């Protein structure tokens, strides 16, 4: 069917079947089905699996709250920090979550600008993931400071003493970068949601749902004027978000590269961090969407092709990351600086060598499997490998933060860092936060951009045999 449409409009010979693009929505689903399938996840009776996931998540979120309360009442000493390792799991987790938060905006903004239509099936969930990941990330810089109650001093607020923040400090830049990124991501996500919220409003069966969705749908009617404004705003926001995707992690990387610590003081950090962030972000998207398409029965919308494409991005960024690791070693040798050289040899063969090799195997070796189509199309293996990517990227931050600090200039300071149970529980607690929000998102918001998916399917054409309201019944 699809071939026929293309052929009739372009008057071209259809490509041979092996070169033909796979449809973005498989199984020739009618257009109404898309609305039903996606909205159905948020409309039907709460499935059991949801409760099985939600209750532990809320418990973990509670644990996060308890850990933060404990931290505030006692001090950061309950973590495993000490001289010279003054940053530990908190900063590692911050950078890790922020990195994860890169995939969503990349998918929705950069791929949008690049006209990658396959993005429509995954962008909504990925963007939600971004927002929740940035929330998880944002917690850590706030709570890791010694006097949490003065955290607002990092904001440039006018005060009687005329004391301003130190604008030369990368931590200051972080404050701006992360908060801007979060704001724009939320706006962008919400923007894209409006037509779908209207769908939900129109499909709602209860008054409460109608009011709630109606409130957030901002009176969307689907008129041409609405669509025209919407498309323009979407494009502007995509344009705004695109540099942010690159800037946030670049600035986070400056936290390290602006310092003069061997292992931190590296000029390749900004591009290397961005690549790593996209790598980990796609890893997390895969981890989330592979089970989700299964339990929500959305295999026809989030197809194997989507997964394959994301695997390719992972392979590309993973290889960039691997190149960066190699480059760091080269530069350490080439610089002739014995301290730099020592840091990198120590990274691989010192007391934290185990962490380094976990990082290398997860980040450099794992994505190499994605060269093979058979692996890319095997959902179970992709799921497992994507988890390795997440682990590897966590260890990358661990290696950067901890192994650089633990043996630096003066050997008298050398030490070893181990986390405490509070570190571990706080980290696990952020998963509670993340999944609580993500599960709520699944239950109350269309997890796939209905309108956008429809727009990129041939069925969206009213003349298409499966198009319009002829079948399916709902808009």
């Amino acid at each position, binding site marked *: 069917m699809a071939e026929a449409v293309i052929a009739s409009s372009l008057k071209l010979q259809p490509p041979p079947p092996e070169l033909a693009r796979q449809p973005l929505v498989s199984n020739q689903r009618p257009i109404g089905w898309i609305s039903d399938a996606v909205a159905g996840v948020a409309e039907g009776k709460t499935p059991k699996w949801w409760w099985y996931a939600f209750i532990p998540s809320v418990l973990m979120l509670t644990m996060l709250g308890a850990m933060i309360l404990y931290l505030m009442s006692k001090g950061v000493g309950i973590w495993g*920090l000490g001289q010279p390792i003054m940053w530990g799991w908190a900063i590692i987790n911050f950078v890790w979550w922020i990195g994860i938060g890169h995939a969503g905006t990349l998918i929705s903004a950069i791929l949008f600008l690049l006209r990658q239509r396959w993005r429509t099936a995954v962008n909504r969930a990925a963007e939600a993931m971004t927002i929740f990941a940035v929330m998880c990330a944002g917690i850590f810089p706030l709570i890791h*400071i010694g006097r949490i109650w003065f955290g607002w001093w990092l904001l440039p607020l006018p005060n009687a003493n005329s004391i301003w923040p130190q604008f030369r*400090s990368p931590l200051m830049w972080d404050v701006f970068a992360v908060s801007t990124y979060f704001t724009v991501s939320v706006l962008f996500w919400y923007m894209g949601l409006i037509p779908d919220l209207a769908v939900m409003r129109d499909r709602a069966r209860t008054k409460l749902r109608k009011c709630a969705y109606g409130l957030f749908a901002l009176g969307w009617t689907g008129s041409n004027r609405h669509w025209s404004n919407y498309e323009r705003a979407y494009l502007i926001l995509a344009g705004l978000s695109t540099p942010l995707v690159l800037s946030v992690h670049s600035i986070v990387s400056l*936290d390290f590269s602006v310092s*003069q610590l061997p292992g931190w003081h590296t000029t390749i950090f900004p591009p290397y961090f961005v690549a790593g962030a996209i790598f980990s972000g796609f890893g997390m998207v895969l981890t989330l969407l592979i089970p989700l398409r299964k339990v929500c029965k959305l295999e026809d919308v989030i197809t194997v092709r989507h997964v394959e494409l994301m695997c390719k991005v992972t392979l590309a960024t993973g290889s960039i990351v691997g190149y960066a690791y190699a480059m760091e070693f080269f530069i350490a040798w080439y610089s002739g600086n014995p301290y730099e050289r020592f840091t990198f040899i120590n990274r691989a063969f010192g007391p934290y060598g185990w962490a380094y090799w976990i990082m290398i195997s997860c980040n450099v070796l794992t994505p190499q499997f994605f060269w093979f189509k058979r692996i890319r199309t095997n959902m179970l293996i992709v799921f497992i490998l994507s988890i390795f990517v997440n682990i590897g990227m966590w260890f990358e931050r661990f290696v950067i933060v901890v192994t650089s*600090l633990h043996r630096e200039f*003066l050997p008298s300071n050398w030490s070893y*860092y181990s986390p405490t149970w509070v570190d571990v529980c706080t980290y696990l607690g952020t998963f509670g936060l993340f999944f609580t929000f993500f599960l709520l998102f699944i239950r109350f918001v269309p997890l796939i951009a209905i309108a956008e998916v429809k727009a990129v399917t041939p069925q969206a054409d009213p003349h298409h045999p499966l198009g319009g309201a002829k079948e399916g019944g709902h808009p």
Partner: protein
Amino acid sequence: MSKTIPPSCPEPETGQKYWRSLSHLADTPEFRQWVEREFPSGASELSDPVTRRHFVKIMSASFLLAGFGLSGCRRPEEKILPFGKAPENYIHGAPQFFATAMPTRGSAIPLVVKSNDGRPTKIEGNALHPDSNGASDHYAQASILNVYDPDRAMRFVRNGNIVKREAALDFLGELSKKSQADGGQGLCFLLERSSSPSRARLRKLISDKFPKARWFVYEPVDFDVHRQAASVAFGKSAKPYFKFDEAKAIVSLDCDFIGGEEDAYLHIRRFTKGRKIEKPTDAVNRLYAVEALFTLTGANADHRLRLPSSAVELAVKLLGTKISWQFAPEVGPRQLDDEKASEWISKCAEDLLKNRGRSLVIAGHRQPQSVHLMVHAINAALGNIGKTVVFLDAPEAKEETIADLAQALNSGQVETLVMLGGNPVYNAPADLSWARAQRKAKTIVRLGYYEDETAEFCDWHLPLAHYLESWGDARTADGTLVPVQPLIEPLFGGISELEVLARIGGLEKVKPYDIVRETYGGIAGDGEDNWKRFLHDGFLPGSAAKPVEVQFNANAAATVIGAAKPVAASTKDTLEVVFHRNYKVDDGRYNNNGWLQELPDPITKLVWENVILLSPKTAKDLRLDVRNNENNKLYVPLVRIEFDGREIVGPVWVQPGQADNVVGLALGYGREKTGRVGRGSGYDAYRLRTTKALHFAGGAKLTPTGQTHQLATTQDHGAMEGRPIIREANLEQFQKNPRFARAMDLEKPPVVSPLYSNPLDKLKEKGLHQWGMSIDLNSCVGCSACMLACQSENNVPIVGKDQVTRNREMHWIRIDRYFTGSPEDPQMITQPMLCQHCEAAPCENVCPVNATSHDEEGLNVMTYNRCVGTRYCSNNCPYKVRRFNFFDYNKLPLDKLVGPVYNTPLAHATDGEWDLVRWFKNPDQGFRPADEWELLKLVKNPDVTVRMRGVMEKCSLCLQRIEQAKIAQKVKAGPSGDIKLKESEGTVPQTACQQACPAEAIVFGDVSDAESRVSKLKALERDYTVLDFLLTKPRTTYLARVRNPNPAMPDYQEWPLSTKEFTEQNGNPFEHHEGGHGAGHDEPHASGKPESAGKGAD
């Protein structure tokens, strides 16, 4: 501190000075009684058997009232003269300084103590004293904390019940009357050593009155052997006084004169005088050390020979033979069989012979009298006597030992035992079974600073007053008379040794003030001005003991030496145990002092406990798996040491450089009854110590218990990894290449022109001064007095063992210690490390809230109020000198120091009150029990912020002192506008670390003043910057170390081992360069590159 003449006292000296009420004026007997009883209302409650906590509450409350509401009441009633400021000029809030002295065993340290509103807060040496440079030692610095120790004895106790003070004093009166009647039959005194002339006088008075009374002296670590040996050798009671500064070659025989001997601070001063060089042509002294354990003396030696303590005797004999002394003691069955050691000694002897009259041989207090006598013989043969060692007249002591007392007790001859100080139940030789023996006395009276192990076995226990609370006197090492002036009324009504003696003696004058004054009158004549001058200056000029003419008596010496029994050589199954004075808690007297407990041992860097020291080879032979994983979890095996039928269990520590088959056991730990601080720290080595083996003995057996124990250290990694952090050279290399230190600089990044000018350079123009510091690594011996001086001055909290294992110690200045070379015979080097006050400080630009910034005088300053605690500054500090307050360490209860301090105030209660409520009521007190809080807040320096949790802190170069000096100068300048501090006028302050440093290794001053000492030191060729290539431009620079080894020695090293390590990695920086080259730009390309490339590739 300039010497100022005290103003004459305007008040009439007779008649009532003050009256507090009409009844006082009337001076009724009731009123006198009221005055006697200090706390009339609270005191009545003391008689009922209440708990200690209740008691403490009352004491604290009373103290609070007395200390603050009526601060004047705590001032001593007798007239004491402030140092430099008259009492009538007292300004609230302005500190006053009083001269006093800290009595030590046979000596004293002259001090000037700072008093803030009537409470002593900081101890400093008295620079006016003829034998002092104003320095002090770590014990003196820390002793101030003992005044405010919440666990000190605070009550008069009879048989476990609290009694009134008067009852105890009445008892002493009765004892006096009784002794009067029977001439002191059965009256025995057990004393500690003291140099106090007043005590000697009282003792004589009592002896005259009660001729049958017996006197015993016991010191677990006794330095009197120096006097005893000299008395035998020269036939008159004399004390050696060592002039290390006069000696060109010094041989130390198991004598840790830099660390564990008495008056080490004096020795350091004199020794380092011979190591201060400015030009390559300057002469340097040479130190040879023969020792079993690795000590600070060995660490600073140019040549070190490790021998078991028992073999030192053989070494001395050999040394004596080699210098051909006129003395032929029998050669015993045991010979120094090690060829290398024999050669070492022969070559050492040659050097001594070259330096006749300018050499010095000394033996340590652990060595038997025979060794000391041989040393005197050697010094006599070398013509050193009267030149590098003089003998000062010392009063002969006629006292018996603790063994005699035990015998007397066991035979029932002791009716009343009066113990003044000491803690024999804990530290008496184990074979005396002291606790049991002591109980055989009918009545035991004890004056003690703590209710410790001994207190349990006493009938009467009286609280001893601290030396800062009581009048006394003492003689310093050179014999100069010094006053011990109180700065505060006894906090808990403690009484002094002198008062107890006077009361027992039934003397008319029982007030220590009167006693001391009378003694002084006897020595220097009476007279008010004279006395005031004495108190003001803190010493009596010209009272130093005169050196006596001595003639070595070879016959007397030979008799003693002949009688000495040699100790058999030790093997791994019959190890030699060596009991040594602990560098931190001494013989156990400072066990409850948190500052000393947390002071890292200068050699092992361990804190909070003692260890069983073994050499690496012995540990290997014994198959002990001592892992040091450098992972913060320092688990070592617990082993059992069996010796002479007794045993102890303790953790093992492998000490590089220790003699093989020797076990080092530090005294002073493992106390059964101590305070909250010392509780549970270490093992008790006294349990193995017997009268036969007081210092060392062979025949111990070591067996692992299979358990492990966690230790806490402040420095895990002891190797410098070939990095040019401490730079050193041998004297010849220094002479050939005076700029050797700079030659070791790493290549600096080629900064052609900076992108933007450093805003601080503009700021500098505004500054009146530019502060900087120079640290001479050639003088620094690692004594750590600076660490405690800083702790005391800057309110640095202690954190406890658990927190040290997590690397959270708070010392603003630390002593980095590195070993180089083989584990058997390593070289050790030390480096004080503190905030370097970088001009381009990496910490400053990363702080997001501007909490650390630069001032125009070049200080890197911390604004504690502004700090939110991101800790980024610490991560970016290459020297890692910033300290973070992870918990509220200043508010941490002492009993929480031992373990994890993880209980949250949300779910915890102190003194039966919810912590949150306590915090709400008094946020400052935190979760400290009331008794601790009321006392420990008093030790704080009011001029320095007490930092809270979550705040970064670091060395400020004693900013408070700088500001005080500036304010004083401004006041002085008045309209003249001359507000610049000038070193030539003596207005530049000293930092606390500098002030305490006996070696004068730390020099602070104005680097913009070309004439200042610091500027001159920085201009020396040895001056270098640590981590220079980072271009942080620190204001603190170091003077490289110059060793002076003897090329003839078998263990001669052409290079200092650390320099050797450096050249192996980076190429020889001296090869291609003659004379003035700067940063050494091309070395890495010359010889270093190929090798480093190979290394980088793997």
